[in-house]
C-alpha cells in the first residue's frame, strides 16, 4: 500500500508547517532575549557580547542553521499550501460571509507570512549581513576621560581596554576584522567586539529614515502578532494535539505569546528612536 511520503501528502505538509513554525517560535524567544539587552543599562556592551555569542557559539551555530532551514522550509511549504488551496476552488463565491465562521488571521496566513518573509530578508541585510561579512564593520570603542583628557579605547573580549591611539600609530594592527595584533611581534594579543550596537542605533536614529524604519519594524511585528494569533494554537491541532482538557490552555498561551513577544520586539526600536539620547 502507498505509504504516503512524509513530505508530499496534505497532512505531512501540515506536520512540517507546524514543526518549523513552533521551532521558529522558540527562535523568537531566544532572539528576543538578546535584543532586550538593548534596554539594559550597559546596553552597548551587553548587546555586542550577545552578538558575538550568537555568531561564534557552536551550539548557537547549529540552532541558527536549523533556523535558516526552518524559515526556508516553512516559507516554501507555506507557499505551496497557499497555491494548492487557491487552486482547490477555481470558481469563487459571489458572496462569501467568511467572517461568520473564521478569524481573519486564520484566513490570511499566506499574506501575513509573506510580509514576515520580506521583513526577515531586509532585517538580515541590515544587521545579519554586516555582522557576518562586512570587512569594515566597526569595533566597539569607549571614550574615557582621564585628568580631563578624553581618549578612545577599544573594548576587548577579556574585559580590558586598548588605546585606539596604538592602532592609529600602527603599534597594533587589526586582522580578521576583530583580532588585535602586536605589530612588532606579529602575535595576536586581544580581540574586539564588532559594534552591532552602533549600527543598530544608527539605523533607527537615522536622521532621514529612522522614523520610517522604526514604524516599518513596528508594523512588521503587528503582522507577526496576527500570524502567531492563529499559528501558535493551529500548530498543536496540526500535530494532533486537541484535547478539550488542554485546548483552553494552549489557545490562551498562544494568544498571550502572540501579543507579548511581538510587543516586546517592537518596544526596542521605539525606545531607540524616541527615548535613547544620542
Amino acid at each position, binding site marked *: 500500500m502507498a505509504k504516503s511520503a512524509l513530505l508530499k501528502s496534505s497532512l505531512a*505538509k*501540515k506536520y512540517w508547517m507546524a514543526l518549523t513554525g513552533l521551532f521558529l517560535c522558540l527562535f523568537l524567544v531566544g532572539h528576543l532575549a538578546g535584543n532586550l539587552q538593548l534596554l539594559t543599562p550597559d546596553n552597548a556592551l551587553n548587546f555586542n557580547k550577545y552578538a558575538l555569542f550568537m555568531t561564534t557559539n557552536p551550539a548557537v551555530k547549529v540552532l541558527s542553521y536549523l533556523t535558516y532551514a526552518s524559515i526556508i522550509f516553512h516559507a516554501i511549504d507555506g507557499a505551496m499550501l497557499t497555491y494548492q488551496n487557491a487552486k*482547490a*476552488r477555481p470558481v469563487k463565491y459571489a458572496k462569501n460571509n467568511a467572517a461568520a*465562521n*473564521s478569524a481573519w488571521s486564520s484566513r490570511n496566513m499566506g499574506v501575513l507570512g509573506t510580509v514576515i518573509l520580506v521583513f526577515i530578508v531586509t532585517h538580515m541585510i541590515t544587521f545579519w549581513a554586516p555582522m557576518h561579512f562586512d570587512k569594515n564593520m566597526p569595533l566597539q570603542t569607549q571614550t574615557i576621560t582621564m585628568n580631563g583628557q578624553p581618549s578612545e579605547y577599544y573594548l576587548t573580549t577579556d574585559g580590558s581596554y586598548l588605546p585606539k591611539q596604538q592602532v592609529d600609530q600602527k603599534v597594533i594592527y587589526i586582522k580578521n576584522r576583530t583580532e588585535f595584533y602586536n605589530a612588532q611581534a606579529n602575535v595576536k594579543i586581544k580581540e574586539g567586539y564588532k559594534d552591532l550596537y552602533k549600527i543598530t542605533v544608527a539605523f533607527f536614529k537615522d536622521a532621514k529614515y529612522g522614523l520610517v524604519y522604526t514604524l516599518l519594524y513596528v508594523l512588521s511585528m503587528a503582522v507577526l502578532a496576527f500570524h502567531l494569533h492563529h499559528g501558535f*494554537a493551529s500548530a498543536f*491541532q496540526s500535530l494532533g494535539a486537541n484535547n478539550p482538557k488542554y485546548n483552553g490552555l494552549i489557545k490562551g498561551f498562544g494568544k498571550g505569546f502572540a501579543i507579548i513577544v511581538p510587543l516586546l520586539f517592537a518596544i526596542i526600536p521605539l525606545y531607540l528612536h524616541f527615548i535613547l539620547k544620542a
Partner: protein
Amino acid sequence: MKLTLKIWRQKNAADKGQIVDYPIDGVSPDMSFLEMLDVLNEQLINRGEDPVAFDHDCREGICGMCSLFINGEAHGPDRGVTTCQLHMRMFKDGDTIFIEPFRAKAFPVIKDLVVDRSSFDRIQHAGGFISINTSGRTIDANTIPIPKHDADRAFDAATCIGCGACVASCKNSSAMLFVSAKVSQFALLPQGKVEATDRVLNMVNQMDAEGFGNCTNTGACEVECPKGISLENIARMNREYLSASIK
C-alpha cells in the same frame, strides 16, 4: 415576505453560468428554504422557464443531499441545520438572498445548484468501512465491550451526513472534517482498529487525489457543519495518519 433571490444558473457542466435575479413575493416565514424554492420553481414552470435545479431528498436533515451556499454560508445563516431545515423566518422582508452551489474543484457543478459530490463516495470506498465475514456465525456487535465514552464519540463522528458543507465553507475547499469523521467513527471502536493503518492512509490519499485543498485550521467547517462534527476529529486523524505513516 417579499425577497430578491440571486441564484446561480448554469445549464450544464460546460456552461459558464451566472447569477440571475428572481424577485419573489408571498413567502411565508414558516416555509422551509426548499419550500420557498419549490414556490419559485412552480412560478418558473408556469411562465415556461427552466426551473432551478437543486439537490434534496429526505427534507428532514438526515440524508445529506441538500446543499446550497446561502448568503455566503453553507446551509445558510442558521447553526446546526441543513438547508432543508432552514426556515424563512431567518430572513427579513425585503432581503436579498444569494443562492450558490457548494464550490470546490472536487465538487463540479452538474446544473444550477446541483454539484457532483461523488468524490466523497470514492474517499469512503478507499477505506471508510470494516471488512467482516457475513457468511453466518457472525458475532453480535453488542458482545464486544466498548467504553461508553468511546462509543459516544464514535457515534458523534458517525452523525456526519456527508453533505459537504465543510468543504463548501472552507477557504481551502478542504475535506478534512468529513474524512476525519469517517476515520474517527471506526478508529474509536475495536472493530475498526484492525484496518486502521490502511484506512487512514488510503482515505487521505484519495482525498488528496480528488483535489481537495489542505486544512489550515481556520475552523470554518466546524461552525458551518449541520451536525456539529468537532475539530477534535481532524486532530485524531492527524495522529492516526502520523502513526500510520511511520509504521
